[in-house]
């Protein structure tokens, strides 16, 4: 089941006539004839009242189709090759998520009207170029430890001093005529206004991705027009972002006022200068995402904890990996992140039902039908699952409120996994209230 990260190519065509709009990803582009056939076979299905949503190629590759708003067709093609058999379901989950994210990011940048009411294909093609930055970021997924585009839960960081920061975010947003504000540290949400959490989970995740890319560029502040794929697909809002310290950005979503210049000169210093040290403490939490008050049990290599209610997640990989004497050579950090991601996909595609998201298409619901059939084979809903491989042991656990995915060192006895998982969950929730 442990698939390698193969290269993925993304195709975008008009749904009605199959005119190619763009392709991204994979250095070697698919030949035009293949693109035409991929579109053709989907159209053929349509004529027979069959929705073709995915298929597997002989070489172990995978193709996933999806039409959005009857206007745009997205196709994701992943080159298989070196994957182990049986990994196809996991891959499909990833590609489906990818298509959904790509569509949302097209709406975020261009707005729904332009995508749905296409008057001039050439113009649309040109305008779509402005989405490439975000789309390429989705395809590359280069930042370790960011899982939101997959989980559709906001990557979060639990600050050591949440109440001070919460107050500042609330006050700052209000002063900027906005109800939507958030503080992002190391690419993860440290605090946000209540309204920010009421945005659709996909929107929160996508905005985080946008803010991360702006933050990585090293710029000091931004004023970006954004459409909200669910909340405001046809009217743009302004995303203002300010780099308080390198790695710490505060953002608000607002209307016509205040201007970037005014917000920056009038508000940033007023609200945030008194909190420089608090922000530095927050930056010091780093990629661990959890404050020092939470100590993880020995043997824990990595974890992903999801709060199902708030749609937030924290994740971390132990560095340097903690390994007791006589243990096999430790896994690299990158490999730990990869394994954590794969175990998450493994668990949710086989055992744990996915959270219902507001924008599930009929097609995707049909998709999920398949995995639900599989789940119906059980007389009950699985609440825990585990997987033992040569590299590590993994344990998944779900309660009404949380899902925990834990990677442990192979030296931890299998019978102790369950205790380790339940303990870890209660340790974190008790210390942080996450």
């Amino acid at each position, binding site marked *: 089941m442990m698939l390698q990260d193969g290269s993925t190519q993304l195709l975008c065509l008009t749904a009605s006539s199959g005119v190619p709009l763009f392709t991204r990803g994979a250095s070697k582009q698919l030949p035009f004839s293949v693109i035409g056939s991929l579109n053709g076979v989907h159209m053929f299905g349509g004529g027979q009242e069959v929705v073709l949503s995915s298929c597997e190629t002989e070489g172990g590759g995978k193709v996933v189709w999806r039409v959005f708003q009857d206007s745009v067709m997205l196709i994701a093609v992943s080159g298989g090759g070196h994957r182990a058999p049986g990994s196809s379901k996991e891959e499909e989950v990833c590609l489906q998520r990818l298509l959904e994210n790509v569509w949302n990011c097209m709406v975020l940048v261009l707005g729904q009207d332009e995508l749905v009411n296409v008057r001039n294909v050439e113009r649309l093609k040109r305008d779509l170029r*402005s989405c*490439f930055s975000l789309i390429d970021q989705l395809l590359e997924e280069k930042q370790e430890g960011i899982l939101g585009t997959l989980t559709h839960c906001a990557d979060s960081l639990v600050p050591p001093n949440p109440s001070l920061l919460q107050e500042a975010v609330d006050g700052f947003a209000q002063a900027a005529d906005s109800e939507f504000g958030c503080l992002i540290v190391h690419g993860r949400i440290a605090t946000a206004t209540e309204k920010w959490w009421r945005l659709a989970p996909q929107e929160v995740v996508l905005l985080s991705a946008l803010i991360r890319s702006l933050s990585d*560029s090293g710029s000091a502040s*931004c004023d970006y*027009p954004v459409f909200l794929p669910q909340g405001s697909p046809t009217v743009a809002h302004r995303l203002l972002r300010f*780099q308080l310290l390198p790695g710490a950005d505060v953002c608000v979503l607002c209307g016509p006022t205040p*201007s970037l210049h005014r917000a920056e000169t009038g508000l940033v210093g007023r609200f*945030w200068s008194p909190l*420089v040290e608090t922000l530095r403490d927050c930056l010091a939490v780093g990629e661990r995402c959890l404050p020092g008050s939470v100590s993880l049990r020995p043997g824990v290599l990595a974890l992903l904890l999801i709060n199902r209610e708030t749609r937030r997640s924290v994740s971390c990989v132990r560095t340097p990996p903690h390994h007791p004497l006589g243990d096999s050579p430790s896994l690299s950090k990158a490999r730990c992140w990869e394994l954590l991601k794969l175990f998450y996909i493994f668990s949710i595609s086989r055992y744990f039902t996915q959270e219902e998201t507001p924008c599930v298409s009929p097609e995707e619901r049909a998709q999920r039908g398949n995995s639900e059939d599989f789940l119906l084979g059980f007389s009950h809903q699985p609440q825990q699952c585990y997987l033992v491989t040569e590299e590590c042991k993994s344990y998944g656990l779900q309660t009404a409120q949380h899902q925990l995915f834990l990677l442990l060192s192979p030296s931890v006895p299998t019978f102790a996994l369950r205790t380790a998982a339940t303990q870890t969950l209660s340790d974190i929730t008790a210390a942080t209230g996450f």
Partner: protein
Amino acid sequence: MSARGDASELASFTADMAQVPPPGSVVVSDWHRCKDSKEYFSKVLHKKRRKNFGLLESPVMPPHVAVDTVHYKIFISGKSGVGKTALAARLAGLNIPNMHHETTGIETTVVYWPVKLRESGRVLFFRLQLWDCGENALRRFDHLLPSCKEQVDAVLFLFSFTDRTSFDDLSNQIAKWTESSVGRVVKLVVGTKFDLFMHCDVSQRDVRDFQETWSLPVLRTGGEVSDGLGDVAPLLNCLSENLWHQDCVTAGPAGQRSQQETVTVL
């Protein structure tokens, strides 16, 4: 610093009021190469690279060396793909994107640049905030340009040496910023992609003629970024010089830039 020095500084300002000061007449050019600049430049460097300051930070000098910081807003103008985002990154010592990804809104970048005034010997930190807005975003959203124009002190007009139309369009662009409504702004022209001489579409002669017609400084940029400051110093010094000169002219001979002047936080 002598009384005589100050007087001649003032004299030269009154003589050619709104004119562009001759290069190096107001600020010491190549000061980053002088020994006495080290203690100032070290505050904007970190491990031989430029330091990235958050909005809550600024270069900090020891208590006995009080240095004033002067703030300016600079708008970067030019068509899509000309190299606005790349120039902002270059001037700030940030990674230059090698792919063209359209900028879909306004992004500002802050550059701290220590400058020594020629006549008085006074040292200042110039805080240059570069405003970069993607050309297609400007066209799609009406509110962006007014925001870029608000209280702007200077405009960099970009053209690419590999794109003739971008050069030919300069006069139109400059004319738009000469209307009285805009107020007084420093104007500089920057030719990008000077390194791609194989594809050069604008000759040295064209540039000279242009310079004579408009009497605006024209600078060139392009190529690999060296780890030193040499490739950005001419542009940053020229910009600082013109900004300072404009302030002195605006405020009158005895004036000083009072608005927004801040003392470096200790």
